């Protein structure tokens, strides 16, 4: 007759997994939103140096990327181990930079051109000779705003 029946049978009740898909979807959407698909596949090694006095590049559409470094292992047989420049998806020569910049400028609206920045993503093991050549070419086409892309961190990390 008692209304409060003692629950019969022990054992821990199973944890409901009904909300698991929701949680997973939440994570999924997060990663889908933050993922930026790489515009071009890297063909050079690109371990960026560290620096701590960095500024952020905010307008991503106004950035032109120049990669440089040693060709990554699959390409070493063909291109050697000497540091090279990569523009878009191809290895390039120093003299191709001017055409590349011109191309990038043409693909942008005219009023955006003065604000274009060139981001140099250069492997930390590269020699300055190549970078000086790049800079010289950039000066020739009057693309004077540059940014040495770095990771954030203490500079001592560079020498480990």
């Amino acid at each position, binding site marked *: 007759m008692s209304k409060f029946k003692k629950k019969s049978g022990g054992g821990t009740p199973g944890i409901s997994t009904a909300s698991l898909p929701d949680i997973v979807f939440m*994570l*999924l959407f997060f990663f889908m939103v*933050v993922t930026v698909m790489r515009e071009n596949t890297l063909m050079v090694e690109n371990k960026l140096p560290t620096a701590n006095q960095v*500024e*952020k590049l905010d307008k991503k559409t106004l*950035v032109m990327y120049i990669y440089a470094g040693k060709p990554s292992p699959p390409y070493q047989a063909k291109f050697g181990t000497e540091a090279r420049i990569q523009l878009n998806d191809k290895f390039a020569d120093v003299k191709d930079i001017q055409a590349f910049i011109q191309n990038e400028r043409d693909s942008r609206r005219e009023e955006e051109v003065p604000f274009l920045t060139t981001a140099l993503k250069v492997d930390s093991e590269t020699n300055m*000779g190549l970078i000086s050549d790049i800079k010289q070419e950039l000066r020739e086409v009057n693309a004077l705003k540059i940014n040495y*892309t770095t990771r954030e961190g203490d500079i001592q990390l560079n020498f480990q």
Partner: protein
Amino acid sequence: MAKRSAPEVNAGSMADIAFLLLIFFLVTTTIETDSGISRKLPPIDETEQDIVMKQKNILTVLINKDDQLLVKDDLMELKDLRQAAIDFLDNGGGVGEEACDYCRGAGDPTSSDNPEKAVISLQNDRSTSYKMYIAVQNELVAAYNELREREAQRLFGKSYYTMEKNFADANWRGNKEKLKEELDIIKNMFPQKLSEAEPKKRGSL
């Protein structure tokens, strides 16, 4: 005909599908680094004229092919460079019209007159490594930033770094024009005068 109820779709495998997608995106995500040291290259000037500058207003920083640092022809460790640059910029050795009333340096007459005149000339070899170059650039920018921070604290009681951050932040609620004016004042006190020569081939140095 009797109305048949639609069979329920089994959603048990939804979690698995979602997991699969999740793992795909986890693997492909690369958090892009888009921060770095911004620099302005000097324009190519055909009618180049030599500007006469006093030798004492120039701090020559040379990185040789073995990544050694030579400041004014003396060997120096990287960790001492920041202080050396600060001492040089903040020296305030000028007299009369060239005096600098906010400098707190030693006032050495053989070093720079005032921060506006002081130029740091960075030279490197073609075989200098990029990481060393970036490290040196970083230290020199840090020297300027430290001096600007000091002046920002003194004049406005605010941190230069926060001011810069607020200025770049589109969501910041505050008087941007006033902030820009203040930033300009500080930047003009210690203008970044970093000259980069085209690298020379230096064998023995």
